[in-house]
């Protein structure tokens, strides 16, 4: 029986997607939800048992180990939560297509992480890119089609590289099961394959410099799909592939150069994306850039080669999916009420939408790494691991790693700053008069974000019991129960929260015993609190934006000098112009081309 259950993880959502085509609209969401709950049950059962791999013609196609189980369970959990959010409030025009694409997406993601075979990995990886494109097409904004195309070209291009990389690997080692024995990075072909796989992983997860699709996609696509794919499942897939590369496809344990490369790439991703996020005026784009910036921490952790940092990187991947979906969904709730995702259109909604505000605040504090939320725990592990890594290295390497670490830690302060701006612009400050009639969003919205917010706290407090002991021990080499004990000695989140609660309680008692409350209007030195005295928050960081040399860097970034897609399209256009010039329609010239071609062919054959 167990033998075939791996199939179910892929076939059940596929079947749900097909049934949804013919099912009445009312029942689609319910069927989706039931399917997802069943998948979660199945994933847990499979993780507890030891399912044997599935083979087609003697080739292993799907198999399951701890890393797979880890990714699978969180794919199901997130898909359930986002489904709850989508139960009500989904744009009616989209809901039909959405309910078909949704289970299809889950099926592709499940199949991708289950694949131990290069061929099935490429197929399902590609399909998961396709659904991203299809979701993008559902966007209603003026730029939705263009953005979906850009996403598809970047992601599709990276899929082609993944395919090429795997072919090279196959050519090198003649194995289809890519996880069997690690390939050493000691020859040019292996390095080339490594780079190609890395680009595929980075493009999917949204790592620098292949991230440029992500912020624009976040702005244009329906918010539920943004919370599902770029914020959650694509991160799991991208970092899953990266973890596989580091742990089982390539042999990198002693490759210090490569580890330094990953740490540097991570730090650069963190800082560049967060600097861009700070100056955004659109809430969705701001979150999109943060979705990129957080990948930096994961790359740093997973690629560093230190067991604590690796566990931290994988933990950060899960944390990011949780708080980032929470933030996107909260922003979505606000957007559905206000009708815009521009920060300047909002303000002072904390009182009108108290639940949404609380959940978003928890998400913002988690992503900024405020203890004792989950974001802090994973960042702390990454920093601790990287410091441990630096310890045994020669001075130059040490210095390099430390500077990267400074960037990463500072990146988290910048994240905090940009989220304080986000929270201020949407929920705090003075509310514009036109938003006086706004109401709290429907219950399913804040139940979904509420579950995510509670998870931020629960994972922050009980990560050892919920994540590390069941998943990481035995999955990452040298990460064992002793490591867990030393981690708990170094940082105890439950003690931190308990002590904080005690002192908060004392403060609260003093306040309650002494308070005499009066309610009044704002005091502006006798002036009436007019609309013109409203501080939006979008201009918070103008001093930083206009500081030299950041000003010229920001200008260049806004002109898309760092956008690999724009650069490539500029190059393609100029190259095709060159070819156009070579085609003037003169017969003599074409004859000359033929002669040159023949001569070249003879020279090559010779």
């Amino acid at each position, binding site marked *: 029986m167990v033998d075939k259950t791996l199939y179910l993880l892929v076939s059940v959502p596929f079947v749900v997607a097909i049934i949804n085509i013919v099912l009445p609209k009312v029942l689609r969401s319910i069927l989706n939800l039931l399917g997802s709950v069943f998948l979660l049950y199945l994933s847990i059962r499979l993780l507890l048992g030891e399912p044997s791999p599935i083979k087609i013609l003697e080739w292993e196609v799907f198999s399951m180990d701890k890393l797979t189980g880890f990714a699978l369970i969180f794919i199901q959990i997130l898909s359930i939560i986002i489904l709850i959010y989508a139960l009500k409030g989904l744009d009616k025009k989209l809901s039909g297509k959405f309910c078909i694409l949704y289970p299809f997406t889950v099926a592709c993601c499940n199949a991708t992480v289950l694949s131990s075979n290069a061929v099935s990995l490429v197929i399902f990886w590609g399909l998961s890119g396709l659904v991203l494109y299809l979701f993008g097409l559902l966007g209603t904004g003026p730029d939705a089609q263009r953005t979906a195309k850009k996403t598809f070209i970047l992601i599709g291009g990276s899929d082609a590289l993944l395919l090429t990389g795997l072919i090279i690997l196959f050519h090198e080692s003649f194995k289809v099961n890519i996880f069997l024995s690690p390939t050493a990075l000691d020859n040019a072909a292996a390095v080339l394959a490594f780079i190609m796989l890395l680009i595929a992983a980075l493009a999917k997860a949204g790592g620098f410099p292949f991230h440029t699709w992500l912020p624009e996609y976040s702005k244009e696509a329906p918010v539920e799909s943004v919370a599902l794919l770029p914020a959650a499942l694509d991160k799991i897939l991208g970092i899953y592939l990266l973890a596989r590369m580091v742990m089982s496809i390539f042999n990198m344990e002693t490759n210090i150069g490569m580890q330094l490369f990953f740490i540097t790439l991570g730090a650069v991703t963190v800082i560049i994306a967060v600097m861009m996020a700070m100056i955004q005026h659109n809430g969705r784009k701001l979150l999109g850039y943060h979705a990129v910036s957080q990948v930096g921490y994961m790359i740093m952790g997973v690629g560093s080669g230190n067991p604590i940092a690796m566990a931290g990187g994988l933990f950060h991947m899960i944390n990011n999916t949780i708080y980032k979906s929470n933030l996107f969904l909260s922003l979505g709730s606000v957007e559905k009420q206000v009708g815009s995702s521009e920060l300047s259109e909002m303000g002072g909604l904390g*009182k009108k939408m108290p639940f949404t505000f609380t959940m978003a*605040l928890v998400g913002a504090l988690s992503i*900024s*790494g*405020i*203890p004792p939320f989950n974001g*802090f725990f994973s960042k*702390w592990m990454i920093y*601790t691991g990287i410091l*441990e890594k630096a*310890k045994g290295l020669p*001075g130059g390497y*040490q*210095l390099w790693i*430390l*500077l990267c670490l*400074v960037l990463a830690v*500072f990146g988290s*302060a910048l994240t*905090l*700053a940009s989220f*304080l701006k986000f*929270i*201020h612009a949407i929920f705090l400050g*003075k*509310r514009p008069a036109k938003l006086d009639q706004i109401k709290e969003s429907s219950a399913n919205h804040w139940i979904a974000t509420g579950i995510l917010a509670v998870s931020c706290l629960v994972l922050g407090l009980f990560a050892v019991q919920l994540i590390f002991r069941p998943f990481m021990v035995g999955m990452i080499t040298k990460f064992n129960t002793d490591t867990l004990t030393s981690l708990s000695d*170094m*940082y*105890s989140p439950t*003690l*931190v929260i308990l*002590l*904080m609660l*005690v*002192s*908060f309680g*004392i*403060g*609260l008692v*003093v*306040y309650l015993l*002494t308070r*005499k*409350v*009066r*309610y*009044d*209007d*704002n*005091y*502006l030195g006798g002036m009436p*609190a007019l609309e013109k005295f*409203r*501080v939006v*928050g979008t201009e*918070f*960081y103008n*001093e*930083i934006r206009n*500081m030299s040399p950041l000003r010229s860097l920001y200008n260049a970034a806004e002109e898309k000098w760092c956008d690999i897609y724009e650069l490539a399209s500029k190059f393609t256009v100029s190259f095709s112009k060159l070819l156009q010039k070579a085609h003037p329609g003169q017969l003599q010239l074409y004859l000359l081309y033929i002669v040159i071609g023949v001569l070249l062919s003879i020279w090559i054959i010779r």
Partner: protein
Amino acid sequence: MKVEYLFYLLVFPGLLFTGVVGLLVGWVDRKVSARFQYRVGPPLFQNFNDFFKLLGKETMIVKQSVHWLFIAAPLVAFAALVLLSTMIGSALFYQQNIGGGLIVVMYLLMVSSVMIILGGSSTGNVYSSIGAAREIKLLLADELVFIFVCLIPIIKSGYQIDLVQIAGIQESGGAFIRATSGIIGFILGILCIQAKMTLPPFHIPEAETELVEGPLMEYSGPPLAFWKLNHFMMWVVYPFLLVLLYLGGFKSEGLGILWFVLKYLAIVVVMIIIKNTNPRIRIDTALHFFWKILTPLGIIALILSVLGA
């Protein structure tokens, strides 16, 4: 949780000790500042009187504000500072690691600023919002340098992030301030503290003359009392952290206690002198100062500490 942790938290070195010492050092600050300005200055227990008087006053809550956040903000900041004083104090006086090491402390130190920003801007007051924006920028300015301030002792102690170990290594091998990188780190540390406590010349967010206390503008009664108490507790938490990181911590035998008090007072006096001799700078000047002048110094100190100097 062990029962003695409650004693650490509530009595020594946590709430009671830090609160009382903070209010007393606040008096030193006010007295010395008064002497700088040829005034007599307040009596010894003035800060206590102020605190208790504020507790008896009315709490004015802005109707349009997010009420729970407005009230919770000073209390969360208070809880974070009590916890910090317990963590740093226990490492100094009991050689015990409570809750976490230096990285946890670094992140917890941000909580106070975050709460000032959230609580202040929850009122919708224009002055509070402008003040909050400046508070964030100031946090960004000093945080970059503060990372170097924290990293140097980590490197010098052989990559320890445990506060007890950092203090212990200095006890056996001499205080880190004896090294060149230690001197630079310590100076940077004092300037960072000055900014983190928004003391002149970095009182940009509160800027009494133009922003009328900025984020704290709408606060009154007990919540304001807590903000004031928080500020006084910082007079203990930050200098204690610097003593632990650079000046060799605390020894209980011999003249250890006297030495510790002297080290602490030295830092406090330097801060008071800086406070009284500098006018307020603009926020862009502060960013420029921290990012373009102090950060390169931090990098130099980092290089020196990796080289062992």
